[in-house]
């Protein structure tokens, strides 16, 4: 059992248990804390997979941005009875059965479709040839790689398409959504309240 396997089991157990804890806990504040640990664990999984840039983005955007939004939402709405909302035992039983069935189906499909011993891309263990943010940026811009790794695809070299247009679409979408969110959540004057 090498170091990577030990690290994987540590991070995977951490992430999975925290994800189940988000589901199990009744307290919404505790669920937010467990969600924080789950997202950080997912970033650790990305680091283990050699995706440094995605892991850093996960930490910055998810843990730094989305979770702050969620915590603010919890703080603004967690009044008295809404902190812990009980779910009936019958719903718990049905949910457990459905969840176990769904997970069993997924696990069977995964083990039938993918052998556990699929070899990894060995080139990504080497920092010199691994997926750096430079490679990602080139892929976004559609720039031809100076040394295309044709042995990876085996056949003819792929035509570089570039992801500049989807990137622009996503950024404009994010801008519009944030304007819409600010419009939806703006402070409204209550009807009937005395104007200052």
């Amino acid at each position: 059992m090498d170091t990577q396997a030990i690290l994987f089991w540590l991070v995977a157990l951490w992430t999975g248990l925290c994800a189940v804890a988000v589901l199990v806990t009744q307290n919404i504040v505790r669920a937010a804390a467990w969600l924080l640990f789950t997202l950080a664990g997912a970033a650790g999984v990305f680091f283990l997979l050699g995706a440094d840039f995605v892991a850093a983005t996960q930490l910055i955007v998810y843990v730094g941005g989305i979770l702050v939004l969620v915590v603010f939402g919890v703080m603004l709405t967690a009044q008295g009875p809404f902190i812990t909302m009980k779910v009936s035992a019958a719903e718990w039983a049905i949910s457990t059965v459905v969840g176990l069935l769904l997970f069993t189906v997924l696990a069977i499909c995964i083990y039938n479709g993918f052998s556990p011993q699929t070899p990894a891309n060995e080139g990504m263990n080497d920092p010199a040839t691994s997926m750096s943010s430079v490679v990602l940026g080139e892929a976004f811009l559609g720039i031809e790689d100076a040394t295309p790794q044709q042995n990876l695809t085996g056949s003819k070299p792929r035509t570089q398409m570039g992801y500049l247009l989807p990137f622009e679409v996503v950024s404009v979408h994010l801008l519009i959504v944030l304007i819409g969110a600010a419009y939806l959540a703006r402070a409204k004057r209550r009807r009937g309240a005395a104007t200052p």
Partner: protein
Amino acid sequence: MSDIGLAHYLILGAVLFVSGALCMAMKRNAIGVLMGVELVLNGANINFVAFARFNPAFQVEGQIFALFVIVLAAAEAAIALAIVLNFYNNHMTVDVDTAEELKG
């Protein structure tokens, strides 16, 4: 057991997916439902990055799609929290079972 392969990461993604799906179905708090959505998106992201690692044809695409998913999740969280706050302002509750104006 000693060698970590693609299936291990896919199983981890399945754990996050099932937790998130059940979270969406079970939680009565609207923000809890939003947390379930985040868990599902993270499970899908782990699958994307795992395929990028183990399948040479998706080496770039897997990570780029994961980045897109992260950005779209940020947009979705912002708009969902705005809707939840609006709902709370109008109904003084965040219980999703009380949002039944559209019930036929």
